[in-house]
Every structure is written in C-alpha cells, then in structure tokens.
C-alpha cells in the first residue's frame, strides 16, 4: 500500500518529466528528418545552381575573351590590309609556279601549278625558312604578334593554299606554306570560312589552322575582275589566351571540384580541351565510361549540343580521376559555348555536398542527443525529487498507519507513546491528518477509560444485586418455613376447637341428664355430685385448651410480625434493585421488571400478613371471651357443687338454673364454631401465602438469572474493552 503510494508519486513525477522530453524528442526527430530532407534538397538545388552559375561564368568569361580577341584580330586585319595597300595590291602574275600542296586535314599531297602571286610588282615568293623575311606576314607578326597568312585559290572549288605565312609548323620548324585548306572537309561539310569568303564576305570567327584553332578574320583577295583569288588571313591562336586557361584551372568548385572543357563537334568531339590542372588536356574521352559503364561523355556532348544558348544542363555520374582508388559520384553542370565549340562543365563530387549534409545532420544528431541527455537529466532529477518528496509525503502516512494498526490491536497507550515520540515536520494535510488521528486517539483513550470505569461500576452494582437476591432468597425460604409452621399451628387450633365443641355437646347432654335427674328425685344427689365433679373436670379441660389456643395465637402473632418485617425488607430491596437497575441503563431493563414484580409480591405479602393479623386479633378476642365465660361457669359449678347438700331444698332453683344452662352452652358452642372457622381461614390464608412465597422464589430465580446475565454482559463488555490497553504493560 505504502509502496504503491510512493511509486505513484515517483511515477507521476517521472511521467511529468518524461512526457515533454519524449514529445520534444519525437518532434525533434520528425523535424530533424524534415529539415534534413529540406536541407538536402536545398543544398542539392543550391549546388546545381552553383555549378550552373560557375559553368555560365566560365562561358561568359570565354565570351568576353572571344570578343576581345575578335576585336584584336579585326584590328590586326586592318593593319595587314593597310600594309598590303601601301605595297600596292595583290594580283596574279603570268608566270606560274608549281606547289607541292598538302591537304592540312588529310595530309594528302598533290602537285599543283598556280600563277605566281605578286604583291605590287614583286612576287611574294616561296619563303619557308623563318630566317628569311616574308613580306606583310612578318610585319604583322612584329607589329601585333598575330598570325597572318596569304592564301591563294587553288581551283574552282575554292581550296585555299598557304603561299605566305608567319605560322611555323612545330614539326619542321619551317613556315607552314604549301598546305591548303580544303573547301569541303574530308568528312563532308563545307568549310565555313571558305564558303563565306567565296561569297565575297569577310569571315570573322574560328577556324582550324593546321592542328590548332584560331580566331580569325579572313578577307577575300580579289583580282581586277573582282574574282576571289585568295584570302588575307589574320588570326590569333585560340588557346593562346593562357590567362583564360589558368583562370579556368584555378576555378575551384566546392572542395575539390573543377571546371573542364570538352570539344563539341568534329574531330574535337569528346576530347579534353581543359582538364583538371591541365593533366589530361587533349585526351579523347569520347568512349569513356563511368563507374556504372555508361558512356556518359557522349551523353554530355549530345545533351550540350541540344541546349539553347545560355541554357545549363546537369548530369550525375561516377568518376575516377587518376591517382584515386575508387570512382566517386559526381555532379556536373555544363553549358555549350558555341563560338568556340566548347562544352564548359563545372563538376564536383557529391561527397563534398554529402560532407555538408553530414555536418548538418551531425548537428541535428547532436541536438537530438543533447535533448535526450537533457531529458535524461531532467528525468533523473525529477525521479530524485519525487523519491525525496514521496518519502516526505509517505513517511507521516506510514507513521499514522502504524499508529492506527496499534489502535486496531488495542494498544492505545503504545499509540499515544508513538505520537509523543513522533514529530510531524511537514506543514501540509498530513499534519492535519496527524492532528486528527492524535485527537481521535485521545478521545478513544478517554472513551475506553470511561467505559472501563463504567464497567467496573456496573459490575459492582450487579454483584450487589446478586448479593441482595441471595439475601432475599434466604429471607423468603425462612418465610416459607414460618408459613408452614403457622399453617400447622392453625390446623391444631381448628382441631382443638372441634374437640372442644364435642366436649361441650357432651356437657350439654350431661346437663340435660342432670336436670332430668334433679327433676327425677333428690336421691340421686351423690350421683349428681360425681356428675358435678365430672363437669368441673370438663370445664378445667376446656380452660386448658383455651390457654393452648391463646398461646398458639400469640406465637402466630410473633411469626406474622417477622413476616411483616421481611416484607418490609423485600420492599426495600426491590426499591434499591430498581434504582440500581435504572443506573445500569440498558443492561438493567431486564431485572428492573423483576424488581418491580418482587416489590408487588412484597406488597401482597404485606396485605396478607395484615389480614392474618386482623384474624388473630379477632380469634384472641374470641378466646378471651370464651375463657372468661368458662371461668364464670366453673365458679358457678363450684358454687353449685358446694351448695349441693344445702340446696336440696333449693333443688328446684338448681334445676331451674341447670335448665338455664343449655342456652349458654349454645353460646359457647357458637364461639367455638366461630373459632374453628377462623382457624380454618388462617389455614387458607397460609396456603395462599405459601403460593405467593413460591411465586416469589420463582421470581427470585429469574431475578438471579437476570443478574447473572447482566454480569455476563458486563464481563464480555469488560473483556472487549480490555483489548484496549491504557497503560503500557504490553
């Protein structure tokens, strides 16, 4: 339970720390990929633009150079023309000269005889040696440094033979005269320069001179009839613009990319014009293949030739430079520079751009890693804080749980001690909880001690009630005995009264007999005397019997007084029992009813004893009256007996007196009967009293049962309460 609470707090904190970190990581990851792809795309496009721009720049550079050279050549041509003009004009002589004409393309040799070409009046001559001066052309060389050649038309087709030139054949170190430019190239197309000149126009442009390209200005030489008989050619070797070449070499693309130039058409097709650092210049790479075996050079050339002016195309291929072990992916942008038939390309390795990409993605990666590290740090600190805080929150709760368990086990004292020893430092709800539980424990302590005290009180009360019940039981059993005794005594009285009544009737019959005898004669005086004696004895017996009755009645009176006292005591006990029952509250309800019953029985007893008392009084009065009558009667008998001899004469009187006796006997007899009935009534009352006493006994047993039940209830309550120890003995 406690573990779970703690872990919940930690879990909550770590979730709170983890969630933003995870979200940030996910966002970073997605963004990373997105940014990477954008950067890749942008960089690729940037690179292509960059390459294209470089290619275009180089093309522009070449264009500028071309324009410059072209204008220079034009100027040179003007100078040449001026020189020719100063020296007269160029015209054909009547004499002829035979040339061994060499086709500059095919190197075919054919002897040809042509008229001599004159400059003014002088033949130009056949000057091969560089040491000899050749007119016009050498002057141009000196003045401008340009190449200058005078061509002579060889035939109708327009093949042009060099007759004077300052161009030196590098193989022979002689002037390159005797070579000719065919009007139609070996491979078909007509020579553009010758075609232009034959049309009578001046050609400005690029033309192949022996093996090298020149930027030229060619003007037709006409005869007097206006036919084109030759060409005045001024040109500058195209590649002679060394600075341009160097500039191109130096153009750096990316990390180790470079600018190259390929030939576009004709024999130059697929040939390296400018390679990396000039290492492979002039090499034919038309059939070169890339790493995948594609003839990429052909692709480049075909694509470039199809481009519009100023348009840039790109290509990707794998390329291997000399000195490199493996081919690398390359990207190149190229442009076709038509004036020079150059395909200018700027290429760079994708590695460079991949390097940048790697750097960018590395940055992104490190951002990701840092975010992750930051998140981890956050998570760890959150976990630490949560563990710390969780402990702080959970510890008071654990303490309170321990205390509550102590209370549950009943160790209130231990719980109190724990409270005393515990210090609640936090100022949050746990302090309130702590206070509340402390207060609760205090209240419980007070309650339990109150209940224990009350239990002891109730135990005392119930013990007292049980003792009272025992006492009462003793009293009632004694009462039962007394009642039985009274019943016996009154039965005896009744019996005595019966026998007395019989005796009385015997006396009566005797009296009647006496009266008869007295009436019969005075002779029977002696018999009368003995009869009188008998009568005297009988009256003595009656007197003694009456005395017994009085004595018995006196004893009954004493017993009745005892019963009266007992009923008083019973009433008092029932009263106190009622009060105790009321104090015992709910537990006392059972025996409060019983106590009330006992009270009622005590009242009944009091009433019964009161009745008995009254009867005894009446009986005593009756007996006293009887005794007095008997005494009086006895004295009269004695008087009669004493005077019997003397009263012979008075016998009549005696007889009369005797005759008066029966009514008196009747009176006594009535008294006796009454007495007998009284005793019987007492006997009945005693039986009733006995029944009442038995009932009392039963009630008492119930009462005792209720008291025992109360005691049990109190015992069980005390044992329940005893679970709670208020003093630290456990």
């Amino acid at each position, binding site marked *: 339970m406690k573990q779970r609470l703690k872990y919940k707090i930690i879990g909550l904190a770590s979730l709170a720390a983890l969630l933003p970190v995870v979200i940030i990581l996910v966002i970073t990851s997605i963004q990373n990929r997105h940014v990477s792809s954008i950067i890749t795309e942008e960089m690729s496009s940037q690179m292509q633009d960059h390459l294209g721009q470089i290619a275009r720049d180089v093309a522009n550079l070449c264009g500028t150079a071309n324009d410059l050279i072209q204008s220079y050549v034009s100027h040179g041509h003007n100078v040449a023309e001026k020189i020719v003009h100063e020296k007269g004009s160029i015209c054909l002589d009547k004499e002829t000269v035979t040339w061994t004409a060499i086709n500059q393309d095919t190197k075919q040799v054919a002897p040809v005889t042509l008229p001599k070409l004159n400059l003014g009046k002088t033949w130009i001559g056949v000057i091969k040696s560089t040491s000899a001066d050749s007119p016009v052309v050498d002057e141009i060389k000196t003045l401008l440094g340009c190449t200058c050649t005078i061509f002579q038309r060889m035939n109708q087709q327009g093949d042009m033979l060099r007759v004077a030139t300052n161009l030196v054949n590098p193989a022979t170190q002689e002037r390159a005269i005797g070579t000719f430019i065919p009007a139609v190239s070996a491979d078909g197309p007509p020579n553009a320069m010758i075609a232009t000149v034959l049309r009578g126009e001046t050609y400005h442009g690029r033309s192949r001179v022996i093996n090298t390209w020149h930027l030229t200005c060619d003007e037709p030489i006409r005869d007097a009839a206006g036919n084109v008989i030759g060409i005045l050619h001024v040109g500058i070797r195209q590649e002679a613009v060394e600075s341009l070449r160097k500039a191109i070499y130096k153009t750096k693309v990316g990390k180790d990319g470079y600018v190259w130039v390929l030939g576009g058409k004709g024999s130059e097709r697929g040939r390296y014009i400018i390679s990396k650092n000039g290492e492979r210049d002039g090499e034919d790479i038309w059939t070169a293949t890339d790493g995948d075996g594609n003839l990429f050079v052909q692709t480049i050339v075909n694509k470039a030739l199809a481009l519009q002016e100023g348009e840039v195309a790109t290509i990707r291929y794998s390329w291997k430079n000399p000195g490199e072990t493996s081919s690398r992916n390359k990207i190149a942008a190229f442009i076709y520079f038509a004036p020079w038939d150059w395909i200018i390309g700027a290429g760079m390795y994708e590695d460079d751009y991949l390097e940048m990409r790697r750097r960018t993605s590395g940055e992104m990666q490190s951002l990701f890693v840092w975010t992750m590290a930051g998140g981890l740090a956050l998570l760890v600190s959150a976990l630490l804080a949560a563990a710390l805080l969780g402990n702080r929150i959970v510890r008071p709760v654990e303490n309170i749980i321990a205390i509550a368990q102590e209370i549950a086990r009943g160790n209130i004292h231990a719980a109190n001690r724990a409270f005393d020893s515990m210090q609640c430092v936090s100022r949050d709800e746990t302090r309130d909880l702590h206070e509340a539980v402390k207060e609760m424990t205090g209240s419980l302590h007070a309650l339990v001690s109150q209940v224990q005290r009350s239990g002891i009180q109730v135990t005392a009360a119930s013990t007292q009630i049980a003792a009272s019940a025992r006492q009462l039981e003793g009293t009632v059993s004694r009462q039962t005995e007394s009642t039985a005794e009274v019943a016996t005594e009154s039965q005896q009285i009744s019996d005595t009264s019966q026998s007395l009544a019989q005796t009385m009737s015997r006396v009566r019959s005797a009296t009647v007999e006496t009266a008869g005898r007295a009436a019969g004669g005075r002779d029977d005086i002696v018999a009368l005397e003995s009869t009188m004696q008998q009568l005297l004895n009988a009256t003595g017996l009656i007197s003694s019997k009456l005395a017994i009755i009085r004595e018995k009645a006196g004893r009954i009176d004493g017993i009745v007084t005892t019963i009266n006292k007992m009923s*008083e005591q019973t009433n*008092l006990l029932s*009263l106190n029992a*009622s009060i105790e029952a*009321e104090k015992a509250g709910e537990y006392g309800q059972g025996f409060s009813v019983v106590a009330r019953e006992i009270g009622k029985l005590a009242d009944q007893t009091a009433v019964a004893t009161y009745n008995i008392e009254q009867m005894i009084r009446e009986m005593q009065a009756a007996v006293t009256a009887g005794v007095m009558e008997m005494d009086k009667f006895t004295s009269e008998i004695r008087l009669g007996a004493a005077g019997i001899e003397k009263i012979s004469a008075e016998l009549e009187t005696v007889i009369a007196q005797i005759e008066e006796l029966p009514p008196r006997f009747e009176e006594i007899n009535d008294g006796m009967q009454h007495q007998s009935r009284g005793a019987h009534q007492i006997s009945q009352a005693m039986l009733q009293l006995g029944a009442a006493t038995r009932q009392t006994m039963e009630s008492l047993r119930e009462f005792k049962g209720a008291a025992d039940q109360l005691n049990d209830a109190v015992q069980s309550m005390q044992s329940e309460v005893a679970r709670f120890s208020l003093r630290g003995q456990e």
Partner: protein
Amino acid sequence: MLLVVFQIAHDRFGLDAAQVVEVVPLVALKQAHGAPGYTAGLFNYRGSVVPVIDLTALITGTPCPRLLSTRIMLVTYTDAAGAQHVLGLLAERVLETVTCSPQDFQSPGIASPEAPYMGDMLVDGDQMLRRITVQELLPPSVQELLFAACGEAS
C-alpha cells in the same frame, strides 16, 4: 427515567433515581447540634458520616413520623465548590418507584421562590406527584455548615 416515590403529609413526591445511591431503613441518628431544625441528624453510612435532612420537617415544619415505611434515601449532592457528597433524606412511605419520561412533566404554574427545590408535576394515573430537585435543597450557608461538619465525607 425512574422516580423514587415518597410521601410528605398527604402529598406524593418523587426523586430522580439516578441521584439516589441507596434507600436504607431508618436507623437511630446521632443528634447534629447547631444544625437547622430540619436536620434529622448524622449517621454512619459504610464508614462515612452522612448528614440526614428531614424532608417533612423542611417542607411542613412538623418532624416526620417514625413509621416502618419511614426510610432514608441516600443521594449524591454536589456542593457549590463542585465536590460530591452523600446526603441522607428522610421521608415517609418510601415504598415504590415510578417509571416516566421527561416529557410527562408539567409546570405547576405557581412559582415558589422560598422552596426552589420544588420541581414540575407528574400526573401518574389518578394521582399527582411533584419532583424534588436535590441540588436546590440546601442554601449555601447550610451546605457549608453540613459538609464542613462532616469533613471530607465523600
């Protein structure tokens, strides 16, 4: 609640059983000299000396007749200082108890400032009985006198 019923002259009165410690028979009392006239005397209750007030004498001025039903009700009395004492009350016909509820009481409608201990009336069948408030029985001076005389009786 339970009332212990007793009689003074011909009127019935009641005491709250919760306040009654015990009802004991009338015993010979020791004279308490110098105490007010309605003090019946002192007696030994389980080892402590307890003063006994004659309720009949207090209410009617005539001493209570000594009959068999004349008994002493021992009640708990809290004096002005808050200490608890046992006080005996002497009355006639202390024989029965009556169970009732506090709502059954009615005000008699007559104020009796000289007898503040006279409480509300309870109609119990044909008869009526009046409740006695034990706490109001003794004026402070008498309290001091009685419980000082008894010492630390409680």
